[in-house]
């Protein structure tokens, strides 16, 4: 039964992904002006023949339905077209930028959960204490704070004034690191390059904390409220009356149940994390997908924007799929 549920959920993502591609295609065709003009805008005078050739190259001389078909077929093969500005396959550009983005997103999630889960649990156990009030006040502030501003303030305070962290980038120019996987932290551990690890972590800290702050705030609040709810349930009372200590009851019995709504929220917040990554990468000069897209918007490099939006949406859909699968695993009732 569980397998069937998983299978159905997995298959459900296929029409959504096709729909996503159609929506992206339609939005990009709403763009004012001819993409060819945009390319030529950078090169100056050009003959009618070159113009026609470019139209053919970008398949702009075909009917829209055929263009849509070509686009969908290409996307299914991982072919997202060619960048106007750099004349390189969009897919390759995105794949190159992906490790930086994933590294930052994972670090942000780890930071957020490492702080938010314990804080949420403690806030629930010591409800209405000064700790609870302080934590929830901080979480409320975190929800209301835009990431780009938090990032700039963090740079001003911790990088410029205190000099604890570098202001931008992923690794210092003077540090040499042999690329293996493209993940700085992983590569420096693999090649036992401890100087690079230290430098990489120093570069990673501020952006990860800034990107994770919003998630941290939301998770702490949800964790607290679901923990409060679980602690009121009968099985917790039973566990207590068996003579188990408070710590065992909270950590063994209540935590797992309270984590279920948290998992859902983390999944929903991944969209915020993905969107935030564009902002945070721009603020910290982090060479990932987000910055690639923002640069592409300003150089009107639409194939890159199009491809990246699709990749973001695909990641979001897959992340939600994973969350649902986690849910099936965490909550045995789902398998009935």
């Amino acid at each position: 039964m569980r397998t069937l549920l998983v299978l159905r959920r997995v298959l459900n993502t296929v029409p959504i992904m096709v729909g996503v591609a159609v929506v992206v295609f339609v939005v990009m065709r709403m763009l004012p002006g001819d993409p060819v003009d945009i390319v030529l805008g950078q090169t100056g005078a050009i003959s009618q023949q070159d113009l026609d050739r470019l139209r053919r190259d970008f398949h702009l001389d075909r009917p829209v339905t055929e263009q849509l078909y070509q686009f969908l077929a290409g996307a299914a093969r991982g072919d997202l077209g060619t960048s106007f500005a750099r004349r390189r396959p969009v897919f390759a550009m995105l794949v190159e930028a992906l490790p930086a983005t994933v590294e930052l997103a994972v670090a942000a999630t780890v930071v957020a959960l490492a702080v938010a889960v314990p804080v949420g649990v403690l806030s629930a156990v010591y409800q209405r204490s000064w700790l609870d009030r302080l934590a929830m006040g901080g979480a409320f502030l975190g929800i209301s704070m835009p990431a780009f501003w938090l990032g700039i303030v963090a740079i001003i305070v911790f990088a410029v004034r205190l000099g604890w962290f570098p202001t931008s980038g992923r690794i210092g120019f003077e540090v040499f690191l042999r690329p293996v996987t493209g993940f700085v932290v992983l590569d420096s551990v693999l090649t036992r390059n401890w100087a690079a690890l230290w430098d990489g972590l120093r570069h990673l800290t501020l952006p990860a904390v800034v990107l994770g702050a919003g998630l941290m705030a939301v998770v702490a609040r949800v964790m607290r409220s679901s923990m409060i709810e679980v602690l009121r349930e009968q099985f917790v009372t039973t566990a207590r009356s068996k003579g188990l200590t408070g710590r065992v009851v909270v950590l063994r019995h209540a935590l797992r149940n309270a984590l279920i709504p948290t998992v859902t929220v983390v999944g929903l917040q991944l969209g915020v994390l993905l969107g935030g990554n564009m902002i945070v990468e721009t603020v910290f000069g982090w060479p990932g997908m987000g910055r690639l897209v923002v640069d592409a918007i300003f150089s009107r490099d639409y194939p890159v924007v199009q491809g990246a939006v699709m990749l973001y949406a695909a990641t979001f859909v897959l992340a939600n799929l994973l969350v649902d699968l986690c849910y099936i695993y965490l909550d045995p009732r789902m398998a009935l």
Partner: protein
Amino acid sequence: MATLAAWVPQRPARRGGAWGTLARLAGHPSAVLGALIVAAVAAGAVFAPVLAPYAPGASDLENRLAAPSWLAATPGGHWLGTDGLGRDLWSRIIFGSRVSLLVGLAATLLSLLPGLVLGLAAGFYRGRVDGALSRFAELLMAFPHLIFAIGVMAALGPGFWNLVAALAFKGWVEFFRVARGEAMAQSAREYVDAARAVGASSARIVGRHILPNMLHTSLVLGTLRMGHFIVLEASLSFLGLGLPPRLPAWGTMVAEGREVMLTAWWVSTFPGLAIVALVLAVNLVGEGLRDVLDPRLRAE
């Protein structure tokens, strides 16, 4: 008599009506604080030309990047300092409140109304239209909001209504989902059967019975979403995808300050604080409304 009264279809409980809600909100300290801040920002937006000491675009080129007047004696008395073009930050922040408030309000209304109407219709009538709308909503849910808005703004170009459209085009989905769920739940309730039994038309049932029962949910969601829209607008402006750059928007101001953050920290910091204060205030009102109107939503 009592048994008979129980069978008479009644209008749903009004929970004390609008005045009752306001009275209970007045007893909620953080909501009052939020409302006061929102009122102050709104007053600033309305009376900006009177309140601002300088015109938002007026540049004092001799006093570029002047520090706040309480930190260093600057001629002209710019109490929050000036930006790279010598424009008074305080004046620009006051004028910038118009962008945040108007975009936030317009995006919220243009998300709430279609979302509510379509959600009501889909949840009450079900059928094929519901199926199509729900699939479409599901599709839009697959896009992170900021990324979707960035894509739309890249396509439409800068402008007030473009900005509102970029936010609302996906923003209605949340209202739709909540309204649809509510409408489905309400139409299964006994009072709807009772109303139908006494011959009420569908339109009457929806308008007189179901809608009043779910307005408060939409109101709470709307207030909370408004804070979110304000942050989104600021983020788009920060990326240069909001209004035309000559207009003072808080997000744009933070972006302008970024270029000089190593020497003039105030240029980014103060507009950003304005965003935080407004969003915080709107969220405080929203959470207050939720506590008063719909404690069930707390689980969210």
